[in-house]
């Protein structure tokens, strides 16, 4: 599979591809990260977050024209996630020399751990998790995958975009009711 095809599948949120990327790069990431003197459990934990960050970047269309390999990009994010996690947990890690990097991996890692969710966001998260499948799907496509109403209509085989619009409004209304109760 070419790197381009790989990115396209990640963009489609394809679970099997995510699993493949995870397995293919896992051992070399662990070997690469060992030099920072972190436990293997912490490395695996950071690696999983890096994979999620990679998939989100693909979904957002930010790596459509990647000018390095997916592996380099993944390792770049992973390295800073490892540091960010260590910093948050007040753990020490070995310093690493700053290298010239194609992307600002540091800011990608930092934004992955944005501010903690506030009370409203926690309520919304809980409410979202208890919605029915259709609502979850529409809202997930719109807010997480960044689909337009037209794209959602195509993807879910709705008759037209007005049906999607009213479905989305109904779901948001349900969600608001849940968090207000």
């Amino acid at each position: 599979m070419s790197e381009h095809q790989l990115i396209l599948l990640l963009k489609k949120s394809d679970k099997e591809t995510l699993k493949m990327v995870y397995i293919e790069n896992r051992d070399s990431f662990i070997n690469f990260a060992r030099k920072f003197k972190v436990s293997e459990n912490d490395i695996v934990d950071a690696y999983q977050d890096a994979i999620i960050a990679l998939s989100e970047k693909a979904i957002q269309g930010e790596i459509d024209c990647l000018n390095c390999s997916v592996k380099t990009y993944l390792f770049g994010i992973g390295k800073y996630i490892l540091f960010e996690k260590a910093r948050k947990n007040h753990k020490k890690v070995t310093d690493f020399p700053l290298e010239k990097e194609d992307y600002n991996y540091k800011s990608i890692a930092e934004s992955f751990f944005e501010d903690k969710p506030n009370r409203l966001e926690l309520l919304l998260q809980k409410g979202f998790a208890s919605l029915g499948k259709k609502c979850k799907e529409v809202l997930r496509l719109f807010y997480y995958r960044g689909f337009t109403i037209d794209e959602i209509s195509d993807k879910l085989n709705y008759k037209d975009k007005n049906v999607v619009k009213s479905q989305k409004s109904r779901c948001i209304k349900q969600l608001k009711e849940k968090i207000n109760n």
Partner: protein
Amino acid sequence: MEDKEFDKHLKKAITAEERKHQKAYLRAVEKSLNTSKKKFNWRIAAAIIAIIGLSGYFIFGNQSLSNDELYSKYYAPYENVIEPIVRDQVNLSKKAKVFSFYEQGAYKKAIEGFNQLTALDAIDVETITFYKANSYLQLKEFKKAKTLFSQVTKNEQWQTESLWYLALISIKLNDTDAALKYLQQLKNKRTFKNSAVNELIKLLN
């Protein structure tokens, strides 16, 4: 609240929820890798047994696998992909506690827990029923598991997974016709365990 402001919060909430699912999925992948590594030495033993078995197969003729053997060959419990169990976490939510029992193999306790979960615990009824059915299956209470999986097939969320387990239960209960019916439904959908479904259809026919 302004719509834009609400949208921003909702986006963050949905992203957090999605990340939780992705993390649980990757933990399940990681767990499967560790299990397969532990099984490494057994693989050699299994290979030797397979060679002996195959010799027997060719010597004594074409004997097919029994339904019990088929069930054991294809059955694997469904991983917890709902609630990642975070190491060293002290204050687990009610939902996390139940899934922690499930992961540890404490299925009776998990069932008790699933019975008490509601939409207020940020989980939908179908998911609760699906994992409860899996717990019964682990306890070899096939009929109870069957009833619950059948309920779940009415909803798309866990439909293919439930059809797969219903097929395996039918094999275990020696109801080949029913097993073939479920497998055929899965075959038509072509979205879940394609090659295993085709293999089983061949073996059962």
